[in-house]
């Protein structure tokens, strides 16, 4: 026979469980820390910090050079043989879907390497040949100052774990920064069409104002 106490105990246990799962998954929304990170970024819309970039052409400039333009940013390193080539290939496919008139004028593609030691301008230049990166409307760059690199990775929530073989594991996404330098979208890098559509729509809206 089930007595009342056991029924009550059961209700309490289930209530506790429900609350625990609700809180632990932000209301049954987020089951991975990555999901939680993306949600938080979209809410906070952090500013792209002021940093110095050094690109494949060997030019150095401040990130604020791109103020007034959208920036599509990815993080990678050239020695990577797993996610990065796919990430950059997908970025290329987004790049192809953006009408030419916007490229360089209203939006800049920027692939940032976090392997500062190995990815100098020469390495980046040879790497960008594999993609349609022209070094102008789609630039590949590194951040020579480790403190600045750390601050950018931190603001964008990019977690980089070095492994024993000189490789890095890292979470990947398309980061869209708006004309004012605020992060507006964090997009799934595997959903190319979705990302391209979002960008084109934003560009069309912003195109008239410019």
């Amino acid at each position, binding site marked *: 026979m*089930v*007595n009342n*106490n*056991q029924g*009550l*105990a*059961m209700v*309490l*246990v*289930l209530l*506790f*469980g429900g609350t*625990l*799962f609700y809180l*632990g*998954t932000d209301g049954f929304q*987020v*089951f*991975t*820390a*990555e*999901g*939680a*990170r993306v949600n938080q970024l979209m809410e906070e819309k952090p500013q792209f910090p002021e940093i110095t970039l050094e690109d494949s052409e060997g030019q150095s400039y401040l990130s604020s050079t791109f103020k007034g333009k959208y920036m599509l940013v990815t993080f990678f390193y050239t020695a990577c043989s*797993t996610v990065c080539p796919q990430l950059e290939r997908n970025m290329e496919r987004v790049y192809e879907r953006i009408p030419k008139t916007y490229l360089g004028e209203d939006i800049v593609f920027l692939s940032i390497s976090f392997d500062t030691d190995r990815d100098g301008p020469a390495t980046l230049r040879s790497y960008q040949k594999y993609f349609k990166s022209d070094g102008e409307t789609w630039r590949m760059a590194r951040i020579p100052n480790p403190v600045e690199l750390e601050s950018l990775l931190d603001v964008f929530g990019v*977690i980089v*774990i070095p*492994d024993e073989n000189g490789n890095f*594991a890292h*979470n990947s996404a398309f980061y869209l920064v708006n004309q004012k330098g605020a992060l507006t979208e964090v997009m799934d890098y595997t959903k190319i069409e979705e990302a391209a559509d979002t960008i084109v729509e934003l560009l069309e809206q912003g195109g008239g104002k410019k």
Partner: protein
Amino acid sequence: MKQSLIGLLLFIVLSLPPVVTLLESIMIIHMHMQMPLLVIAGALFGRYFQIHFPHFWEKWNGNGIPGITLFVIIAVYWSIPRTMDDALTYPSVEVFKFMSLFLLAGVPLYDSWKRLNVTLKNSVFILFTILFLSMGWLYLNVTQQLCNNYLLIDQITLGWGSAAMGVCIAIYLLYTTFTDPSQYE
């Protein structure tokens, strides 16, 4: 009393910072060794509560169902990729992980298990078979990194480990279904 002491001692050893770091450095050990050991420590320690508060358990957990439900909730909760990640990132979540696996999973498991009838015991086994097999399937098939703190290869290892665990429980279930253990006793 000796049993509870061993449980407490095991819990203390598991909480030592070097042990924590070691066990959590590898994903599969974090999930299939550290967490179960915490539950086992709690189950051993559960003897203490049973001796000192027999009426409490009899009154609230007479048929064992509330207790085993609590155990299942805690166990499932810590198999969500995010909670595992958060335990590594936030000390407060880590403390909750230790306390909940010890007190809210291990202790009620000890008290509830012998109260459950065979059907319920098998249901719990079936539930964990499904949980482990689906976790294995998930970790083996998702090419994305589910946990930010671990490498993809760790994730695949965990996937195989979980699947193997699921298969083992399934074999056990088949074995008990098609053999009659009392014949051998």
